[in-house]
């Protein structure tokens, strides 16, 4: 049962007090612990290759996924674990793929940043997924499926020209496409102000994509903004954008963080996770965390294997 179903099930039992917040927290916490665990495994030499964790950005994935139907399509980037888990809840398939196992999502051929599952695709090239998602959205429209396509990019990706060609085509041909920009302020090691001129929002609006914006770090605020953005694309059948000012708390990849401790501390203050945790009943929160830890431990055990 994924977390959307849990929300629905719990809601139908009449115990609605805080149930949404709890399930939202469960979704975020599970991603957080997976990402932390991956970095630990790398540090211990128990994973090979590379990874890009979404520590601090988990709420964006969970918020958007909540508003999507099973028929909707998600296209993501190199930093994709959170999007995948929020969408599918398939911890074991993801771990198996990252660990290079035959029963991974792509039998180990894709690895951390090249995932594929029904209605879910990721690739490790910056920007290339945006025209791809545009084409997918046009296909869904032609088929009359009613599905929308959501593509996740970062603010660093806004440096790629093909992104703007795609915005233009998506608008011209009315593709039901939602572009979610997770603006974490960094393109690998380069701060966004050194990589981007002008207004991020206007870059989308210039092509006629109405663009929502979330400045805060309240998970529920992100949730509401995601709902509005998804609803807009669904209702109009046309592309729209959502920029989420977010924070990457971990390194770009594994051990390559050149930011100062003070800077990281500032970013940690913006982390939606502790804020959401504080709003929950402590006992219920601990129960959620314990359950996530059990799931993670079970998935780790089930995917033990060669590096």
């Amino acid at each position, binding site marked *: 049962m994924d977390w959307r179903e849990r929300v629905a099930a719990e809601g139908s039992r009449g115990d609605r007090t805080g149930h949404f917040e709890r399930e939202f927290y469960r979704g975020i916490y599970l991603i957080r612990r997976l990402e932390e665990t991956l970095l630990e495994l790398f540090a211990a030499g128990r994973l090979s290759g590379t990874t890009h964790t979404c520590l601090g950005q988990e709420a964006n994935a969970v918020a958007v996924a909540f508003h999507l139907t099973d028929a909707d399509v998600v296209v993501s980037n190199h930093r994709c674990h959170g999007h995948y888990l929020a969408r599918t809840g398939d911890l074991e398939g993801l771990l198996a793929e990252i660990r290079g196992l035959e029963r991974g999502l792509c039998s180990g051929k894709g690895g951390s940043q090249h995932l594929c599952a029904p209605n879910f695709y990721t690739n490790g090239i910056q920007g290339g997924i945006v025209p791809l998602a545009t084409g997918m959205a046009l296909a869904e429209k032609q088929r009359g499926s009613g599905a929308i396509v959501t593509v996740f990019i970062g603010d660093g990706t806004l440096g790629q020209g093909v992104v703007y060609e*795609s915005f*233009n085509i998506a608008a011209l041909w009315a593709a039901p496409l939602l572009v979610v920009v997770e603006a974490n302020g960094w393109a690998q090691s380069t701060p966004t102000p050194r990589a981007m001129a002008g207004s991020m929002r206007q870059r989308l609006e210039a092509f006629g994509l109405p663009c929502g914006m979330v400045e805060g770090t309240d998970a529920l605020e992100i949730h509401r903004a995601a709902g509005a953005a998804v609803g807009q694309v669904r209702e109009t059948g046309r592309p729209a954008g959502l920029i989420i000012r977010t924070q990457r708390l971990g390194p770009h990849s594994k051990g390559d963080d050149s930011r100062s401790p003070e800077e990281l501390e500032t970013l940690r203050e913006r982390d939606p996770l502790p804020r959401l945790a504080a709003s929950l009943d402590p006992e219920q929160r601990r129960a959620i965390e314990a359950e996530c830890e059990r799931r993670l431990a079970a998935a780790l055990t089930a995917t033990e294997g060669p590096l």
Partner: protein
Amino acid sequence: MSTRCAAALNAALAEALERWDETLLLGEDLADPYGGAFRITRGLSTRFPDRVLSSPISEAALFGVSAGLALRGRRPVLEIMFGDFITLGLDQVINHIAKFREMYDEQVRVPLVVRTPMGGRRGYGPTHSQCLEKLLVGIPGLTVVAGSEYHDLHRLLLAAIASDDPVFFIENKLLYSRFQQRGRDGRLGPFLWEEGDSTYPTVQLRAADRCSVSVVTWGGMAHLARQAAEQLAIEHETMIEVLILSRLAPVDLTPLLASVRRTGALVVAEEGTLTGGVGAEIVARVQHEAFSSLRGPARRVAARDAVIPAARHLEDAVLPQVEDITDACLAAAAGTEH
């Protein structure tokens, strides 16, 4: 047969649009009354207004949009106006389109055709005249087809569109106005004619039962190789076999190997530049498989490693000519070192 190659391609596109609802054509200036820069889509936007889309000048995105359409069950045929412009979309080709099927462990297919004209001899100059197929043949996961007037272009293009995997379909510009040249009862003019029965067959034109050189070529060079074969037969009493490939990658050299074993000499003729050319790969494979059959070194005919000038006399000096093929064949027939 009196069908021009352009009409054969147009008819194939029309048939695909008619037969398969998921087919759609994308590209710059495809819509009527223009009908594409080389008029290959003429009439189609009128007949299929929702499925023939004139696009912005955005090749990079068009490759990606086409890939997205293909991944979600459409059957897009993308026209890139000049083959020179494929460079704008190579990220999509290399890191997306050609990778998806294997990278995603067979969970997806990418039924996408990219049609594009290549080749010179029209004075279009350095950026509108190139044969860039060598950039494509080394990409795993990609099928590269280059038809000629000797192939049934209608059938060839329809097969590419029916394929569930990505196909680059290269059309030499000079083909468009030429008539299809198809053999009948084992003959085409003075030549013995043979065509394999595979989806993308190799056509063989043999000047006689017993020939002394095998020339392998494709696309626009087939026309020159045939002229060379006629000259060699008439002026030098040297008989050659011309093998015209239609699929460059993955390449099936079975007919060529059989030919080399008959003739003992190999010439590869391509219009692209020499260094790192498709011919180098063919020569490497043939010498590996049939080294003991070769009387002398394989020879390559190709464009000089230079830009293609706009002025026609300068262009002629860069691009391979009929005489280059006849010279290479005479040297190969003699089995001499140079």
